[in-house]
Each structure stands twice: as structure tokens, then as C-alpha cells.
């Protein structure tokens, strides 16, 4: 049953946005779709309305920094509460200038999640009603969850972590 409904979602997605799909995977039985960044809001709206998918609940949204690729991914996790089906959508933005449209018109709950992603990764959500830092102080100039910012001061000498640290 689970498999067939996931197939329905994939076919609904392929029906209209075949060219936008980069990769489909189901790690740990969780449907994960990587998409091109251009039409993400349109696709989320499509998945919201389509009778086979109806992903009308935003579970979470976050950023992921890939320093080797020099990219920042934005992950949207949606939930269909009626059929109990979850999907994870990912888009990849260039790390120098990550810009993507906001999904706040579809989900009011995306407001603070997008602010958090901006706060920690510097992803600029176009059209967001109030895009400013949320958890960190407003005069901070870095985006702390990016991998180039180490957790501790690298010049510290009292604590040699070379053996155990990452």
C-alpha cells in the first residue's frame, strides 16, 4: 500500500514536472525528490492541490550546506495528513548568492522557518514579509551554520582536538 501511494506521488510529479526532477530516492522508505530550483513554489502549490498528493501540511524546512559542492540546499518536508504520506523536496542554491522565492503564501507556518534558514544559512527568500534574523542577534554578520564557521576558535591552544575532532 505504502509503495503504491508513493508511486502515485512520483507519477503525479512526473506528469507535469518531469523536466524539473533531478533525482528521486527513498532512503529509509522516505520519498526524497531533488528538484531544479526554478519552479519550486509552483511545484509545492501543485502538490498541495493535486488530488493524488494533497501535501497540505508543512512539517519542516531547513537549510543544508555542502561546502564541497559550494551549494546550499533547502529542504522542504511536506505531509499529507489524510493518507499519511510524507515527502522531502530539496533544491540546491549557489552558496555565494542563495535566493529562492518564499512559500509563505501557501503555508503561514513557513514564516519563521524561512527566517531561521535565512538567519543560519543566509538563504534569501524573495517576497518574505519580514525576512530578518530570528534567533541570533541582529547585528551578526555571519551565517553561523555554514560549514566554514568552526564551532570553536581555531587559534585556541589550550585544547588540542586534532586527535578526536572532525
Amino acid at each position: 500500500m505504502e509503495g503504491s501511494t508513493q508511486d502515485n506521488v512520483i507519477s503525479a510529479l512526473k506528469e507535469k514536472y518531469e523536466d524539473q526532477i533531478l533525482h528521486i530516492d527513498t532512503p529509509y522508505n522516505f520519498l526524497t525528490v531533488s528538484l531544479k530550483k526554478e519552479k519550486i513554489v509552483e511545484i509545492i502549490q501543485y502538490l498541495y492541490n493535486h488530488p493524488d498528493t494533497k501535501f497540505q501540511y508543512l512539517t519542516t524546512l531547513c537549510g543544508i550546506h555542502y561546502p564541497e559542492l559550494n551549494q546550499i540546499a533547502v529542504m522542504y518536508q511536506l505531509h499529507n495528513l489524510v493518507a499519511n504520506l510524507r515527502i522531502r523536496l530539496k533544491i540546491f542554491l549557489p552558496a555565494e548568492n542563495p535566493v529562492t522565492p518564499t512559500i509563505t503564501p501557501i503555508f503561514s507556518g513557513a514564516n519563521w522557518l524561512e527566517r531561521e534558514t535565512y538567519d543560519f544559512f543566509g538563504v534569501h527568500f524573495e517576497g518574505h514579509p519580514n525576512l530578518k534574523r530570528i534567533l541570533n542577534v541582529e547585528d551578526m554578520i555571519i551565517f553561523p551554520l555554514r560549514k566554514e564557521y568552526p564551532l570553536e576558535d581555531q587559534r585556541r591552544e589550550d585544547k588540542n582536538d586534532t586527535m578526536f575532532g572532525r
Partner: protein
Amino acid sequence: MNVNQSVIEQEKAGEKQYSYLNLGPTHPATHGIFQNVLKMDGEIIVEAEPTIGYIHRAFEKLAERRPFYQITPLTDRMNYCSSPINNMGWHMTVEKLLNIEIPKRVQYLRVIIMELSRISDHIICNTIIGQDTGATTGFLYLFQMRERIYEIFEEICGARLTTNIGRIGGLERDIPQKAWEKIDKFLIDFPIAFQEFSNLLERNRIFMDRTINCGPISAERALSYSFSGPNLRAAGVDYDVRVMTPYSSYEEFDFIIPVGTNGDTYDRFMVRQEEMWQSLSIIKQAIEKVKKEPAGIYSARVPEFCLPPKEEVYNDMEALIYHFKIVMGETEIPKGEVYHCVEGGNGELGFYLISDGGRTPFRLQFRRPCFIYYQAYPEMIKGSMLSDAVITMSSMNVIAGELDA
């Protein structure tokens, strides 16, 4: 919002003048450190602007430098009113990543611990609603019971508030006999005290008049704001993670999900009240199930990932090696990304973990229910009185630790 600036702007425009009020950051009625700048017309709230982040501790960044078993104490400090649920949620996430099969007995023991902490979480929320509406008595009655729950946790793991309970693969040791005795005693005494509390407030005309239609939210708006847990159920949506995606053998238990209709303060209060009764029945069922399982199993004992007991580490060569390997991060951790969610005290508590095979997570995101639903607060209190704002906040059970991570 820059208060002075907007006042000046309005005066310039010759508009009606409003007064501005800071509710928080440290105010006895906010139960935690968060600030709300309220734009007031007399005593009516016109607009509210919440500011959060006063106790932000960068857990997601910290987690990227810590091995899996060291992340558990971080999760304690999110929703510190029900830290065992957070701990268990994290352990289950890692177990999902590592594909560890957990013995049934351990799953039932976990259910007992989680439901006890759900009761203690809801005790805090509901008695504080009573406190904020002026009924201190109930608060004092039930806090004795909460103390009893903490004593049980103390017997199981040695800590009370920030428990760090359990380990990856199970528990650190079997639940001792003394804890079982305390649980049994609690199951006898709690319903009496709780019934007394219910009698005080549930059908109390003053309390009902005070809380009905106070801070309501419709099911539609609640879903749009990604509400979860008791607050969503109070609005009439029967979404409970324990039923929707059962974990830790919740599918074997028989319980009811209470739902409200209006999503107002009274409904949220009543949903939590009923959930406590349901938790009590789940604990009783779990104890019966534990008795049927072979005694003495408290961990999956997968040597590569589960820390061996201390006496074995000191006396047994192999256990010492595994202990060393786990602590030094020499174990093979699979690559992958996992999402696991549990029904926390406040709703869907999710852990989104990406592992790149290193000893620490590549990325760990906590889906913190408080953080997500607190953004609806300005909408919920718009047009209501200042005193309604206070009890709306306490009935939403916003925990600063979970809000700010």
C-alpha cells in the same frame, strides 16, 4: 519593531495614538524568556510582535561536533518539561539510522517513561493555566505529583529534570525495583489528586467563562501554521504521531485521542486533561506487557553501537575495546538521511539527521513544535485583552528552551 520610531511616525501622520507595551522578556506571566511588543488601544491588543532567541544555544551547530551519544544531553535542554521524550526520540532516530532492532521489553519500558513525562509536561501546562487565572490551589496539589514523577526518573537514571535517560539501543540499566514500587504507588495516588484538580477547574463556571473563546484558532489556520500536538487537536484535527506513525510499539496500545472544537484556551486545557488520563491507561497497559516479557532485558546490546555496562568495561577485554571504539568514534556509521518524529509534550518533535559516515552528524535539524506554533501567537491574541494574552500563552505551553534551541 522599533517602538519609538513607529510612535513618532504615527504622530506625524496624525493618526490615532496607540500605546506600546513590552510583555517580557522577563515577566512572571510569560513563564520563560520571550518578549512581545504589544500595540495597545486601551486594553485591547491591536498588534503583537514577538521577539525570540533570548536563550538560543546553537544546538544544531553544537550537534555537528558531537558524537551521537553526546547529543542526548542537548535534547534534554529543549523541552525541559518532558526531556525523556526528547531523549527517546533522539535514540530512536539514531537506531533508525543504524537499523538496530529494539527488544519489545525495552520498547515498553520506554513507553512507560515517555508517558510519565507526558503527564509531568501536561501537569505543568494545565496547573499554570489555573495559576494564571487565579487558582493557585490546583497548582500546589498537582506539583506534588510531578515531584513523584521526578523521583521515579531519579530512581531510573539518577537525574530529575535534564535526565539524559536511556542510551542508543535501549536503557543504561534495568528499571530498579524501587522505581517499580514508586510507579505502582504513583498509579494509585495520581488519579485521586488529579480528580481533585479536575473537580476544581473542569466544570468551574468562573474558569469556563474566563477561558472559553479566549485565544481561539480555527483548524484551517492551525494546519496552515503547522500546529501539532494538543494545540492542533484542540482545534479539532486528530493528528497524533503515536497513531499516525507509531514508534516504540504504540500501535499495540489502546487509547483515545481527545479532540476539541474551537481551539481556544479551554479546549487546549481539556485536551491535555484527557491526555493525562489516557497516558495513565497506557502506562498500566505497558506494565502488564512488560510483565509478560522475559525479565532483565534492557538494551539491544549491539556491541558496535551500544555502550557496554561499566562493570564489563572494567573486567572484560572485549567490552573495553568496544567502549573505546564507541567513545573514540571508530565505529562504522552508515551514510544516510533519516527523519524520525515522536509525539512530544507539545507536538511532533522531529529529528532530521544527515550522516556522512563520520563520527558526528553532518547536519541535524530539530523540528521543534513550539518554535513552529508560537508564530501564530500574534494572530491568536489580536483583538483580545492583555490578560487574555497571558493565559493564551500559558495554554499554548510555549517552552523557551524548545523555542530557541
